[in-house]
């Protein structure tokens, strides 16, 4: 191709074809522009005038939360919201003024919402008021024509039909705040977001995907027609492991007290009930809590916002003797037949560590020591084990770390050891402190959930599960998006005989003559358990009546239970703060109520029955020939 005349004809032909293609395509483009700008120009000009084609968001319906049997625990209901589109209102301050006149001063400062939204495009809706009552809705509707740009729209509103029930576990939703807007994608001002509990933890499943509509509006902003739309995708429904009826019974049993009840299935780690009292009403948060309400809740001395089941850490008291017994048998510092004399106290250095029973228990073996909760026996065992071994076993039972149940701000409690004390206080461990820990006092603390999980591990033969509260998340069409499986976090690794001997003794606690947990006894079901009374403050030698101790210094009452002892299917942990009396007296009856409900016993008038069973305890304990189960 040294000469342009040598250019092959095919080459020329193709260039000509390319030029033709270009001219045709430009011609077509011209035709297209003619159609848009000339033929339909009028229409597009009028559409452009009031920004007549708008995008309206259709909020996704948040998934509901159900209990294990499909009972609705958290629901949505329609709410009438007062909405303003500044673009259509023309004169926004005047419209706000007119609205304030119409609704009265109790509607609050409507201009605040407008001020908050000043950086958003003027055709976007601003929600001025949520959840209008019927009267106001009618008022707005009848004055529609004097209020351009103002409308009442129906939106979903989160509702918690059972109020305070399981409030800490379910959590609540609230308006997304600035920090959440910055850290999470896909949220816009005014959106709702799960703030605590399951609502927060399962936000991504519950939330759903917003849809939207392209709508054409008239010059007043009224919807003329929907041009096109994407339906919203509802959030997933969350099916919990919780049993609503058991939860209600547990909360009622705690009525008037400060404390917590946790019920679990030891075979799976599923939480059946998790009560914390006092509680709060999540509906108050869902509608937008007022400042004074918030202050009242957060400054309440009874701490209704605290989820005691997972955030409250208490010395486990004598319930910790379960861990001590296991450690002692596994480490071989005692045998089941080792007997230790209890004279009501143990002299240690210059101090005497008392048994709760000042008269002493006499000569006791492990079984008796658990049944009667003899402190001296476990002082001795503790001395033989040493603090670090005790600490190791406590950790094996899951103490000292959060259980990862899946709720924010879960506490792990404290398992003291030499290293821990060195790090925490820069002080060496004093041998006397080992004795306190041996009976679940001192630095040792745990949450009710941890104690339930610990009991579950003994009940199921040695498997430590991660407690969980969600069964599955399913789409509205029933397809399962997430299904939680049992997660084994540890194996106690104990000899079978160790577990059986402890279970046997725990059966005795409830069923033996003068067992400390006799008030948890149920005739139809073999219940095992352990009482605990944890001191808030070391008492003087002198006995003081509980009524005479300031409330905040009164003892906490514990009871952990499982049933049926032969093949446990439920465990219950009860904690009552500042009960002032022992676990056997205060906590055991609560556990009994929950267990009875679980097994469908004494449906009616639980209180009456409780009194009756009280009598039974005494009758039967003497009749029963043996307190030991034939394992």
């Amino acid at each position, binding site marked *: 191709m040294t000469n*342009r005349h040598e250019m*092959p004809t095919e080459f020329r032909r193709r260039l000509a074809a390319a030029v033709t293609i*270009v001219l045709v395509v430009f011609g077509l483009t011209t035709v297209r522009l003619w159609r848009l700008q000339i033929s339909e120009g009028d229409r597009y000009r009028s559409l*452009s005038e009031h920004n007549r084609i708008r995008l309206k968001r259709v909020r996704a319906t948040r998934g509901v939360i159900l209990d294990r049997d499909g009972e609705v625990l958290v629901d949505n209901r329609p709410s009438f919201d007062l909405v303003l589109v500044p673009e259509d209102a023309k004169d926004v301050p005047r419209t706000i003024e007119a609205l304030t006149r119409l609704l009265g001063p109790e509607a609050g400062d409507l201009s605040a919402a407008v001020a908050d939204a000043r950086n958003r495009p003027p055709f976007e809706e601003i929600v001025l008021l949520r959840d209008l009552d019927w009267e106001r809705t009618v008022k707005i509707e009848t004055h529609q024509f004097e209020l351009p740009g103002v409308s009442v729209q129906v939106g979903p509103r989160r509702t918690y039909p059972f109020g305070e029930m399981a409030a800490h576990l379910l959590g609540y939703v609230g308006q997304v705040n600035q920090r959440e807007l910055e850290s999470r994608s896909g949220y816009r001002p005014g959106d709702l977001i799960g703030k605590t509990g399951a609502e927060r933890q399962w936000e991504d499943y519950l939330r759903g995907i917003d849809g939207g509509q392209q709508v054409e509006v008239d010059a007043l902003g009224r919807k003329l027609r929907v041009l096109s739309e994407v339906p919203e995708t509802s959030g997933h429904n969350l099916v919990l492991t919780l049993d609503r009826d058991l939860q209600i019974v547990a909360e009622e049993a705690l009525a008037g007290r400060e404390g917590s009840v946790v019920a679990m299935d030891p075979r799976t780690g599923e939480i059946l009930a998790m009560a914390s009292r006092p509680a709060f009403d999540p509906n108050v948060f869902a509608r937008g809590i007022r400042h004074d309400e918030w202050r009242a809740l957060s400054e309440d001395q009874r701490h209704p916002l605290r989820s005691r089941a997972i955030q409250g850490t208490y010395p486990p008291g004598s319930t910790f003797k379960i861990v001590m017994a296991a450690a002692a048998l596994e480490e071989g510092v005692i045998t089941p037949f080792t007997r230790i004399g209890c004279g009501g106290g143990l002299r240690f250095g210059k101090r005497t560590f008392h048994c709760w029973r000042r008269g002493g228990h006499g000569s006791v073996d492990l079984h008796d020591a658990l049944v009667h909760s003899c402190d001296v026996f476990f002082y001795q065992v503790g001395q033989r084990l040493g603090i670090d071994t005790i600490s190791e076993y406590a950790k094996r039972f899951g103490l000292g770390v959060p259980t990862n149940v899946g709720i924010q701000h879960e506490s792990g409690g404290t398992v003291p050891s030499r290293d821990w004390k060195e790090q925490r206080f820069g002080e060496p461990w004093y041998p006397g402190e080992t004795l306190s820990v041996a009976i679940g006092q001192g630095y040792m603390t745990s949450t009710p959930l941890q104690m339930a999980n610990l009991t579950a591990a003994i009940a199921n033969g040695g498997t430590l599960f991660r407690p969980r509260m969600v069964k599955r998340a399913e789409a509205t069409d029933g397809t399962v998006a997430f299904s939680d499986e049992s997660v084994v976090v540890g194996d106690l690794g104990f000899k079978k005989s160790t577990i059986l001997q402890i279970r046997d003794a725990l059966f005795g606690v409830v069923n033996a003559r003068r067992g400390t947990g006799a008030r948890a006894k149920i005739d139809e079901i073999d219940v095992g358990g352990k009482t605990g009374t944890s001191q808030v403050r070391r008492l003087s030698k002198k006995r003081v009546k509980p009524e005479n101790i300031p409330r905040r210094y009164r003892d906490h009452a514990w009871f952990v239970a499982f049933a049926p002892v032969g093949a446990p299917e439920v465990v219950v942990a009860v904690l009552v703060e500042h009960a002032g009396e022992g676990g056997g007296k205060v906590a055991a009856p609560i556990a009994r109520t929950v267990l009875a409900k679980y097994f469908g016993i004494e449906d009616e008038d639980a209180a009456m029955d409780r009194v009756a069973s009280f009598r039974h305890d005494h009758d039967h304990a003497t009749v029963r020939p043996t307190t030991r189960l034939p394992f």
Partner: protein
Amino acid sequence: MRQFDRRLAYHFDWLLLGLTLVVTASGVATIYSATTGSADGRLLANPLVVRQMAYAAAGLVGLLAVVLFDYRHLERHAYVVYALVVLLLVLVPLIGTMGGGARRWLNLGVVSLQPSELAKVGVVIALARYFHHSPATGDCSLRDALPAFVLLGIPGGLILIQPDLGTVGLIALVCFSVLFFAGLRLRAFAILGAIGGAAIPILWSYLRPYQQQRVMTFLSPERDPLGAGYHVIQSKIAIGSGEFWGKGFLDGTQNKLHFLPEQHTDFIFSVFAEEWGFVGAMVLLAAYAMMIIRGFQVAGRAKDRFGAILAFGVTAIVFWQVIINIGMTAGVLPVVGLPLPFFSYGGSSLTATMIGMGLIINVNMRRFLF
């Protein structure tokens, strides 16, 4: 170059340069209108306008620099240029910066470089070089064209993972245009069409429904009425409401209300057509048409195959981008995110296309030498 041939100055294509500058200047004015809230803002107070003017100046320097040397030197180093572009594309996933859900930019401190824009011209240079030496002249079999597909595939794959399907599609279109011009047998096009037509449904059937959905939205985002579909409607309203004479410079209303998130880049044409009307749009289209026809003319009378294919390929880049961009804003083609050449805001695109123009001018200038 030691002795600047006076014939060179004589054959300098002032028309192409003039068209380029006029379109670029109109682009700057429209960017100003699209990004300034009210009409009283000063021109130089708008950072986007200042930046675009700086890019235009850089592009002009690049254009003139490219004109100065004989393009046949480029032929010798064509694969080196190509390799450099590929290297830049390789760096993108490694050290690139994110924007709009994709990793497309290399941060150079003051400015960001978008290597995929350079790849458009880079692939054309490599293709021109390949077909310059290809024995098949005007009768190119599929086998002869195989290396061309490799030259397309390497940068194509790298851009696909950014992801930027629109640019990959454009480079493929340009590649096929060059193949057409270079003389790939029409039968070969038929075979390629048949293979593509057969492969796509098979590949499609292997995708899960949600993946298909994702591909569909990606290929034609206007199916999503809340996202791109909404932008297209607003863009059509903007263009249509311009009617015959337009609303006047700075008097467009659609774009001022932030209906279009990409009003100064991909949807700049709708801003222009709203303010300048059908008349303005026709003038702009005419400018592009003249530029493109001129580019083909240069290709037709180039001294050698390298020059011819180079001029044709660069012209094809301009043509396809103009048509796809305007078609997209006018609601007849899918929203794929390609700029309007010389017009849309964007430094890499503007300078790369201007350098491309320099190559055409260069080829035209030297057609009488030797």
